[in-house]
């Protein structure tokens, strides 16, 4: 177990370095915009107002001092007050975390429900015409960017058929289109990976062994090949989580889904730096937490990694 702790420790240090770099980057971006005070107050400010804001926020101090102050405030999760909303930025961001998590995890579930059966079917007999035809569809689907899918879904289901609403998130019906849209970011690729893994698994010797004691074709796929194929699929989902967050940002904007991504984009429109910084910080922690969980899950699921040689 000692090695487990050492690995965890290394992960934490890597994460701290990571977080520090992100936070520093954000700090310097703020400086890049020119005069932050002007950004906050607007173009019509008087010089006195600008000076007052500078003093209030410490923009008049030397750079390194500002940086130190910045880091010390961050350590207590003080990101300042939102320029647009006049409330603590961190609080605003945490309010929005929930909807983003719901959207993301719902989409992952939907993706798995689509990709695993479809991938298994495609991978079982890759040379059959039905598979090749469907495979071509999946290939083209992979070429349709997620936000285009979102717009098309809105066109079909909100505008033309009027079955589903296209924004907001109160009613479960509102959840369908955003979830499907975010799922489309990952589903085609995951389907192809599952299919490839299944095809490869079916070529392995242990499948021949299973056939030799009379396993049916269905069992071969589901009880022998798929458990192996899914290991690779899980790895992909974990690796693509960051990409999924990017997709969530766009999806939330399209559907006015009040999550972190929506908040972030809105904040960039007004250059509301406290909110931007808080949002990016929370996203960084979220991504780290999910990666940690995926690695842990992997260690538990793959018997070869469980590490107890008898």
């Amino acid at each position, binding site marked *: 177990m000692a090695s487990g702790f050492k690995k965890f420790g290394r992960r934490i240090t890597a994460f701290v370095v990571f977080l520090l770099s992100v936070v520093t980057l954000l700090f310097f971006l703020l400086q890049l915009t020119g005069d932050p005070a002007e950004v906050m107050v607007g173009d019509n400010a008087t010089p006195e107002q600008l000076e007052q804001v500078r003093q209030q926020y410490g923009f008049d101090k030397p750079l390194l001092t500002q940086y130190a102050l910045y880091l010390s405030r961050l350590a207590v999760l003080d990101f300042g007050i939102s320029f647009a909303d006049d409330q603590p930025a961190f609080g605003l961001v945490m309010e929005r975390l929930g909807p983003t998590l719901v959207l993301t995890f719902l989409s992952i579930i939907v993706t798995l429900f689509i990709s695993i059966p479809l991938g298994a079917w495609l991978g079982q007999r890759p040379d059959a015409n039905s598979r090749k035809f469907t495979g071509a569809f999946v290939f083209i689907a992979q070429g349709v*960017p997620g936000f285009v899918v979102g717009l098309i879904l809105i066109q079909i289901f909100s505008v033309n058929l009027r079955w589903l609403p296209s924004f907001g998130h109160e009613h479960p019906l509102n959840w369908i289109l955003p979830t499907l849209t975010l799922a489309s970011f990952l589903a085609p690729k995951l389907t192809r990976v599952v299919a490839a893994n299944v095809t490869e698994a079916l070529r392995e010797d242990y499948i021949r062994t299973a056939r030799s004691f009379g396993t049916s074709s269905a069992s071969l796929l589901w009880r022998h090949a798929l458990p192996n194929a899914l290991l690779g699929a899980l790895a992909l989902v974990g690796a693509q989580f960051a990409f999924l967050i*990017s997709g969530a940002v766009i999806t939330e904007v399209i559907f006015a889904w009040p999550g972190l991504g929506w908040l972030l984009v809105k904040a960039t*429109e007004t250059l509301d730096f406290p909110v931007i910084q808080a949002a990016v910080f929370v996203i960084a922690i979220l991504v780290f937490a999910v990666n940690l969980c995926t690695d842990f899950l992997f260690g538990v699921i793959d018997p070869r990694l469980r590490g107890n040689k008898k």
Partner: protein
Amino acid sequence: MSGLLPRLRIASKHRRPDIQLIIGGLACITILILTIGKDFFAPGDPLSGDIMDRFKPMFEGKYVLGTDQLGRDLWTRVFAGLPWSLGIACVATLIAMTVGTSAGLIAAWKPGPVRTVINRMVDTIIAFPGLVIAICIIAAIGRGFWPLAITLGVLTWPFYARVVYAEALGLMERNYVLAAQLYGVPSRWILIRHVLPGLRPTLLVMLAFHFADMLIAESALSFLGLGAPLQAPTWGNMLAESRQYLFNAPWMMLVPAAAIVVVVVTLNLIGDGIAATTRSKARAVE
């Protein structure tokens, strides 16, 4: 049984370009012709239109792809988007590929602090959602062709670096590299003349897929209002504008959407095609 079966799977011993590569290649050439000959295929001003002709549907009358809310011809606008989108993707890809490949090679060359630093940077950047950082950067430094292209390039070089690092490590184990080192060939030479050519097939495949990713990223950022200047006729902007009019004029969304999908699918075909061709070449050698 082991020795027999692999041989039986060789279809032919000559290198035959994969069908996907052929289709993709032809499509790509078509797109390039259309881009270069933009003024010939789509003369006219993408920025102005006859307000009396707004919301004309596709295939009716003289506007083949319809018009938008200001009466601008979508055919002209979609062509105008080509050089912008392809241009940004090109620059971003070039930056990412050069920086990434160099970083990967340097990291692979020998163990030490340089390798550690590069690998840490790669891990850090890859772990984070790129779009989020891109949004922040563009918000800070402003919109435009070069900010967008450079930002995208700088955020995506780690993908090349990671792959190049892994493959270069493998290639350097090969005997011809060891021989060159024994002969005292300078390291830069070895990397460029001996290792880099071995990376070519992988790099080409990555190039195709990465170019597509850059195109999508650019349209996504423009869609969010963080890419092209707001009035520029880029596909991302066109999609953003089309949102309000999905009811009156769905073709405003369909035209740029179709354009993006066509280019991306073309690039995916090329990428898959190169991958399949180089795989079959490797097998035919056995």
